């Protein structure tokens, strides 16, 4: 078993280790969880350099199921994002989570285990197993440590995602029945060589079964209704993990599985999906604008931002794909940071209603500054991260259909409206007495949690070259796979051969 194979098991080991600790020693548990998750993050950095990044072992030979995991340019950054956000989530929960501490950290690590597995699984059965493993801890994170309506939100979250994914299981079994293997690269090779073909009806049905499972997770309008509830009710760390990592499972799944396996159906259905994505962008933004609850506002902004990702994917060109993947990371960083900051506010004022705030910048100038940077990143200010992703997505969308880009661009403008308006009402204006009393500035722990994300916002906004080459190389392959078996040829700007070669070499 190579490094990657072992690495993916480390969160599980950490989870088991944590279970052994006595539940009364809360401090020890927090420190252990933080140390373990930081160690996992350190190990994950090794994936950037480590060779080989693939493990392929027999797991259940009787059923032809393998422990096949691999990392490529598409998944590497998502894995790093996950491993980075886990210690951050532990840090921000240091004070916030004050009951059932052991269970909380155990579930967080189990969640990390499931999510990392989803990003690396190259065996459809294994993928489904990991997919479900991540669900249960999230249910508890929302249901135990959430706010007043936590149980309703947790059940809704669980049922939505579960109901959508059972049909994916049926489809996976069907694909296995046709292909004789769960091994994803092998299936793709069979599709490419024409050994395995799906009829048009098969493709459409299978595509839809997979797509709905992923779309609920994204969430794509109109399947998004679980998201605001889950976000508002979840504890801060739950919101951060949900927004930054769990939503990406959906978009990752579409890009990794839906498109390459069922290219014809994906292209045939691209039209209405893109329209839904645009509706989601605009609708999410408009609903966000009228929210009196700041967490709900950020939640709806997620619906809007994820619409961009879907739009980029279904533009079917290099820029669209690159932008979509980059936007996944951006959203993970900036919306994750926003939820953290909202959590900071809540810990001080114990309210999520915007009207309970005002003039926060006077008692807490640093908090306001950090919040402003994050806000600006979220609305896509150039030199900050979201700008790059949104720009690429819009460019890709414009190539596919110019009207898409026009409508989607309104989302960018609207996002500036709702975010800045929220910022203005919360941080400027008169300072009520209560706010003055309760608002203290950031402390060292809070700085430590937010700084890595701030650094990433600037880094990703100014030096996209660090990230994009690997992403593009992976996307180029996916684009190629979606072009096979397709009756019409898609216009993609030919990559400059020298650059392409270098990128592929880098990605390896």
């Amino acid at each position, binding site marked *: 078993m190579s490094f990657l194979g072992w690495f993916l098991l480390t969160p599980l080991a950490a989870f088991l280790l944590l279970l052994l600790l006595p539940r009364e020693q809360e401090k020890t548990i927090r420190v252990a969880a933080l140390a373990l998750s930081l160690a996992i993050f350190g190990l994950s950095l090794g994936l950037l350099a480590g060779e080989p990044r693939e493990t392929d072992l027999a797991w259940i030979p*009787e059923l032809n199921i393998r422990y096949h995991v691999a990392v490529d340019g598409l998944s590497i950054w998502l894995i790093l994002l996950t491993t980075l956000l886990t210690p951050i989530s532990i840090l921000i929960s240091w004070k916030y989570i004050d009951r059932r501490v052991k269970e909380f950290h155990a579930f967080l690590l189990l969640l990390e285990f499931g999510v990392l597995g989803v990003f690396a699984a190259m065996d459809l059965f294994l993928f489904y*197993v990991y997919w479900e493993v991540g669900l249960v801890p999230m249910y*508890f994170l929302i*249901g135990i440590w959430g706010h007043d309506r936590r*149980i309703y939100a947790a059940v809704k979250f669980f*049922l939505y995602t579960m*109901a959508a994914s*059972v049909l994916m*299981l049926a489809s996976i079994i069907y694909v296995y029945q046709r292909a004789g293997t769960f091994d994803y690269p092998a299936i793709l090779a069979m599709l490419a060589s024409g050994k395995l073909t799906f009829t048009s009806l098969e493709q459409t049905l299978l595509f839809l079964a997979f797509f709905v499972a992923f779309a609920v997770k994204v969430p794509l309008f109109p399947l998004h209704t679980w998201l605001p509830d889950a976000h508002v009710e979840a504890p801060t760390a739950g919101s951060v993990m949900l927004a930054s990592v769990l939503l990406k499972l959906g978009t990752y799944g579409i890009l990794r599985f839906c498109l390459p396996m069922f290219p014809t159906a994906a292209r045939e259905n691209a039209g209405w999906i893109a329209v839904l994505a645009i509706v989601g962008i605009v609708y999410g933004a408009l609903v966000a604008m009228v929210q009196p609850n700041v967490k709900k506002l950020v939640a709806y902004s997620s619906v809007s931002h994820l619409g961009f990702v879907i739009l980029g994917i279904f533009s079917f060109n290099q820029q669209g794909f690159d932008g979509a993947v980059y936007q996944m990371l951006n959203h993970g960083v900036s919306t994750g940071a926003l939820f953290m900051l909202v959590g900071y506010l809540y810990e001080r004022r114990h309210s999520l209603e915007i009207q309970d705030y005002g003039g926060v910048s006077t008692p807490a100038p640093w908090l306001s500054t950090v919040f402003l940077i994050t806000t600006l990143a979220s609305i896509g200010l150039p030199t900050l991260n979201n700008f790059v992703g949104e720009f690429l997505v819009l460019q890709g969308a414009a190539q596919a259909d110019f009207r898409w880009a026009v409508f989607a661009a309104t989302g960018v403008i609207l996002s500036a409206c709702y975010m800045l308006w929220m910022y203005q009402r919360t941080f400027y204006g008169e300072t009520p007495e209560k706010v003055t009393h309760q608002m203290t500035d950031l402390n060292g722990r809070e700085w430590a949690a937010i700084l890595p994300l701030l650094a990433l916002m600037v880094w990703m906004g100014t030096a996209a070259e660090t990230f994009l080459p690997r992403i593009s190389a992976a996307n180029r392959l996916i684009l190629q796979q979606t072009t096979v078996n397709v009756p019409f040829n898609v216009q993609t700007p030919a990559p400059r051969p020298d650059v392409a070669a270098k990128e592929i070499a880098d990605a390896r």
Partner: protein
Amino acid sequence: MNLFYTATDHFVLSPAIQLAFWGCAILLLDTWLIPDPRKRRWLVPIFVLPAIVLTAIALGKQHAYLVSEGAREISAFNGALTVDGFALFFNWVFLISTLIVSIVSYRYLEIEGEHHGEYYGLILLANCGMFFLATGTDLVTLFVGLELMALCFYVMVGFLRGERRSNEAALKYLILGAFSSALLVYGFSLFYGMAGATKLSVIVKAMQGRDPWDPVLFLAMATTSVGLLFKISAAPFHMWAPDAYEGAPTTTTAYLSVASKAASIAFLLRIFLGPLDVARPAWEPLLAGVAILTMTVGNFAAITQTNVKRLLAYSSISHAGYMLLGLIAGNDTGLKGIAVYVLVYTFMNLGAFLVVIALRRQNIIGEDVADLAGLAKRHPGYALLMLVFLLSLAGIPPTAGFLGKYYIFLSLVETGHYVLAVIGTLYVAVAIYYYFRIVRSMYLDEAAADTAPLASTVGLRFAVGVSGLLTLCIGIYPEPFLRLAHTSLLK
């Protein structure tokens, strides 16, 4: 034709001899041989141990013989009993259930105030009946085995003499059970009429080439099916199950839901893949309808239950539906799937009932979903194991239950029953809803005022732990268990 009791006969019969001998011995000890009631209390249950060990040795010898000789089967009593992989597989399952149920019964019956030694005798005799259901290849043997098992259960369900729920459950079970047995035996008489023999192998030969829609065969099929479907509690013959499950002592409920169901499934497979195989075109759509109805009734009725035992009763009805789907697919994967399903179902369902048993304490009934509130805080270990059992019952990976369902779905897709596969997967989502009502109560709801310690004994902890461990193990590393299931294929 061999008229004498041969060594082979004895070899094949030996597990049943042990079970029957010790079962009767316990009855005698309890009523006659140990006069002092205080000694009886703890002395009688101990005798279950040699019974199980000796039965296991007898089964082990048969197993070793089959493996070492490479033989497919050992036939005895001129073909009335056949030991093959199928029989052995099910016999192991029965014996494990018997062991676990015996371990946990002592304390439970004490609390109920109905601790009598005959309970253990009945358990062993019921297991003896199950042995004949899995091993019998003759209609008469099978029927006698069925009745032996059923009679023991009628008594065990009504074991709480002072409680009306229990009495009512026993009476309902008895009357409906007798009715279904009558139908079954009527079907058997038709087989005898058609084939002139009661041996399955002879009947199979006689049935060959018969038109699947032959009216006599159809009548035989219909009546036999009703009897068999009643035993596995498939809709629309499931009415007895919720009442019997709720009223019976929980240890009996656990045993009834697991071992009796497994035995009836073995019986059902012997009949449907034997004499009724020719009539497949006739019974396949019929069973498909029954399976869908069973899953529908089981899953939707479970949603509204507030009593955990009743909820698990409906869930066990829906599990019967899934097992039937494997028979409908009918290929190797499907039959192996049923075996895997029976195996994992044994552990997860027993486990869930064991937790309910732990909740029954002096003056506390502990069967309501609300009674589990806050269990995660008070008894994190039990709550975690219950979570594993419920996840497994719902079919969420990486637990064993997922594997069982996966096999069934795979077999359906392989044989082109796509609609059934889709319906089956969709019901998984429904099932999650009601299983998670229990999870929610354990983990999310505030603790009830209940602070009494659980009725947890070393035996109970051991039994729950083993069930939980196996439920996880089969899910994470199923290879050896799948091989075992493979040996149970009935050709």
